[in-house]
């Protein structure tokens, strides 16, 4: 690493089902917010990373080109990053590498999505599967979550009620997040009585299709010192890919079990090494993670080392992951309450930074780490303690 880098500004538009703004407009709104917080203008930005997932949600091909001018990319270094659900985290990772390498001193990472402008996002997501062997069986990201849930329930005795509690906590957490899409007081009973989408995944176990934009500004240590702004230092960052075949991860000669998020555990171990974190559950106070379905969160908190495998369901009941618990998991409401796919993982970073800044302002003395992470098809995982 040539130089240290930090996030010095974040921005998010409000998220909702529909936005009467175009993608360039939403991207620009988020970018302006992040720049304002960083005390910068477009002129201060050296390079731009555009965070954009599948183009089919928008129905506009190569939407990054559509947005170049709106976010100050003209005549500057500009690239689009697309890694499915992990897109926003991968874009921030690219921005981090831009600065850490010493090639740039200021990078704007920005994106926007409007998942509901297409008739059915699952029609798009079904095309992730290969056309010969898997796509024809109506597979979607919801069935993918269901396959994981079924195995987690089988191996560890996790119950639908324990999954439901994740929704109850997330929706309540989102009440204090002004930009969250879904929020409110719901009960385990509400979740249990909601419509099955793919057994055992029900309506309230599922994230919404959201529209909105997000942005972060990453700056080198030199810029941070000059600006006098409060930084969220990026202390570790790692990601690993996994096989796309779910059937390679269950029974037989499987190297990892699809019930678990072992690939995230590998990424976490590397990022913890970089950041010098030895006891995650003691050293980390908040985790923002890309868990678009209730069940996803349980193996993820296990993979991040907050508890043993299979132990998350019980700890969740005991409030371990509540805002005032040992590790506050998705205090923003997380992806379960807001999922503008192209920036959902970037939103985790925005929310993680904000939480870290709020606590520092309150004068908390203990070492605090906010940790966003993301996960997508093929179990690609990335995360950034800050």
């Amino acid at each position: 690493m040539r130089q240290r880098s930090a996030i010095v500004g974040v921005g998010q538009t409000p998220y909702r089902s529909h936005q009467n703004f175009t993608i360039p407009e939403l991207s620009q709104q988020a970018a302006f917010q992040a720049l304002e917080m960083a005390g910068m203008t477009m002129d201060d930005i050296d390079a731009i990373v555009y965070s954009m997932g599948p183009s089919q949600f928008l129905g506009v091909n190569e939407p990054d080109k559509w947005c170049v001018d709106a976010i100050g990319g003209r005549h500057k270094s500009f690239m689009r990053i697309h890694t499915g659900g992990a897109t926003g985290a991968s874009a921030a990772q690219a921005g981090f590498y831009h600065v850490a390498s010493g090639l740039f001193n200021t990078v704007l990472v920005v994106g926007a999505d409007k998942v509901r402008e297409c008739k059915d996002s699952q029609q798009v997501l079904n095309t992730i599967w290969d056309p010969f062997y898997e796509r024809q069986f109506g597979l979607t990201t919801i069935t993918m979550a269901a396959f994981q849930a079924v195995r987690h329930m089988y191996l560890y005795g996790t119950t639908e009620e324990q999954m439901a509690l994740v929704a109850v906590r997330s929706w309540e957490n989102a009440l204090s997040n002004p930009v969250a899409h879904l929020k409110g007081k719901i009960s385990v009973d509400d979740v249990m009585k909601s419509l099955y989408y793919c057994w055992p995944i029900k309506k309230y176990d599922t994230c919404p299709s959201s529209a909105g934009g997000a942005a972060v500004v990453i700056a080198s240590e030199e810029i941070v010192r000059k600006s006098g702004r409060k930084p969220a230092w990026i202390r570790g960052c790692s990601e690993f890919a996994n096989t796309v075949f779910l059937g390679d991860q269950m029974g037989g000669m499987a190297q990892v079990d699809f019930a678990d998020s072992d690939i995230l555990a590998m990424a976490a171990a590397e990022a913890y090494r970089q950041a010098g974190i030895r006891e995650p559950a003691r050293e980390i106070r908040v985790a923002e993670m890309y868990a678009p379905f209730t069940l996803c969160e349980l193996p993820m908190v296990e993979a991040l080392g907050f508890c043993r495998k299979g132990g998350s369901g019980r700890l969740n009941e005991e409030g371990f992951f509540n805002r005032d618990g040992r590790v506050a998991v998705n205090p923003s409401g997380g992806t379960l309450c807001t999922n503008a796919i192209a920036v959902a993982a970037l939103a985790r970073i925005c929310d993680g930074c904000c939480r870290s800044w709020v606590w520092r302002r309150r004068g908390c003395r203990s070492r605090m780490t906010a940790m966003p992470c993301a996960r997508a098809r093929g179990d690609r995982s990335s995360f950034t303690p800050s």
Partner: protein
Amino acid sequence: MGHIETLPGGWSVEYHYAMGPTGVKFFTALKEEAKITAPKCPKCGLVMLPPRSFCERCFVEADQWVEVGAEGTIQSFTIVPVKFESLPDPPYAVAYVLLDGAGTAMVNFVKNLDLTDIREAARKLAIGNRVRVVFEKERKGTIQDFHYELI
């Protein structure tokens, strides 16, 4: 003045996906002989379904083909009771099954199962339960030339 907010639009693109020699071999045996065959890694012995031309762990060509069993064990499943655009009409059940002799599980529909009571159907599809492969009479050389049924 009219209230203009959205513009309708759409994409419609057709494809012809080349299956590759491994896919052709698999689907030919399926269509012509009603057999599920799989390539085996000469180094680690992994029998791969869906079939792949190379062992993705040893990076050697997997050119020894074996026939796998016509029965297997459920590894995971789901039941979809709602309609998604352009996806199969509900309700349908799908399961990842480790066929006897295979090293990895393969997904397919589970048919001949009453899905009216979703919780009851889910109990029957439990991980570890056995299924058999049922071949269609008229086979077209696609993955839907067979499905699973509970034993």
